[in-house]
């Protein structure tokens, strides 16, 4: 468990270091995600990588533990709303309406594009 958490942190650390070092415009944890994914894929290919947290679903169990309470992790930043009460008093209704409309439009655009493209692909395959 400890080694698995260590591996997750190590992936993030390498991700952050590479992003900072090369000035890449992407977040460090996302690079860490790619790194962990490649490690897991490499482990299936090469038996010698299967040790420590990469053995017996070690890192898998630790990751699922972290993801089980994903929403909790947003609470501290969310409470930051108390610092913005004066802004919300003057523009709150407009901000909430703008964000709500935008999220609905985005959800619809994404889900419909996804469905449209996968239906078109299926039609192409059938032909």
């Amino acid at each position, binding site marked *: 468990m400890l080694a698995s*958490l260590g591996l997750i942190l190590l992936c993030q650390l390498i991700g952050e270091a590479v992003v900072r070092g090369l000035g890449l415009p992407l977040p460090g944890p*996302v690079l860490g995600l790619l790194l962990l994914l490649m490690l897991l*894929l490499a482990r299936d290919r090469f038996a010698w990588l299967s040790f420590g947290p990469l053995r017996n679903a070690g890192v898998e169990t630790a990751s699922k533990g972290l993801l089980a309470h994903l929403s909790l992790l947003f609470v*501290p*930043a969310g409470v930051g709303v108390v610092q913005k009460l004066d802004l919300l008093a003057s523009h709150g209704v407009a901000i909430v309406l703008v964000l709500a409309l935008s999220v609905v439009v*985005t959800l619809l655009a994404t889900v419909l594009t*996804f469905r449209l493209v996968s239906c078109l692909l299926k039609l192409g395959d059938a032909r």
Partner: protein
Amino acid sequence: MTDNPFSLWVYLSQSPLLWLTVTLLVYAATDAVSLATRRHPLANPVLHAMWIIGAILLVTGTPYTSYFAGAQFVHFLLGPATVALAVPLYENRKRAVASIVPMLVALLAGSVTAVVSVVLLAELAGLPRDVVLALAPKSVTAGVAMGIAESLHADPSLAAVAVILTGIMGAIIVTPLMNRTGVTDYRARGFAAGLAAHGIGTARAFQVDEIAGVFSGIAMSLNALVTSFLVPVAVTLLVR
């Protein structure tokens, strides 16, 4: 034993222990309510934990910085949790690879819609320029959005609040909205949730369906990439 109960409060309110404990206990309670209502969208645990803790801070006159000194240990885990998304992605890699084309097209359509719609609507509503800039990256996860806002010289903490509000509204609205569109493909539904409402949408998607959660996690990570490039361009073109 201190003679003045107030001095005990002064001591505790300055230590990280108190606010870390409050964060965990309030969330445990709101999550239990959410579970008891069989994950009803309106019983969103983040939303209710947020206003309850916010009210406690206001009533006790605690500044947000003292609160954050304790809660930062929870906040810190956002990064490792993003890395951990590699595991559900790995376990469902065959399904993800099989839908790569619809995913990439939907990613492009969704990211552009997210940024352009919020900038246009905010300008239409007559919001001040610095608010418009802080709202622009609202569909990506908090850490990334704060970075984008900083690079635009907008207020990162306002960007974080916009991100959380977007995530909560997205998580509340996604299930009824998708049921109304009649889309039953949980890949598409999850992908939309993660793209529009980042980690809070992904948490919601995992509650509804495992596959939806996986696709939501993919969308959230990819959108963080695309939006980092997109927001500066959109802002130059659209904001007066």
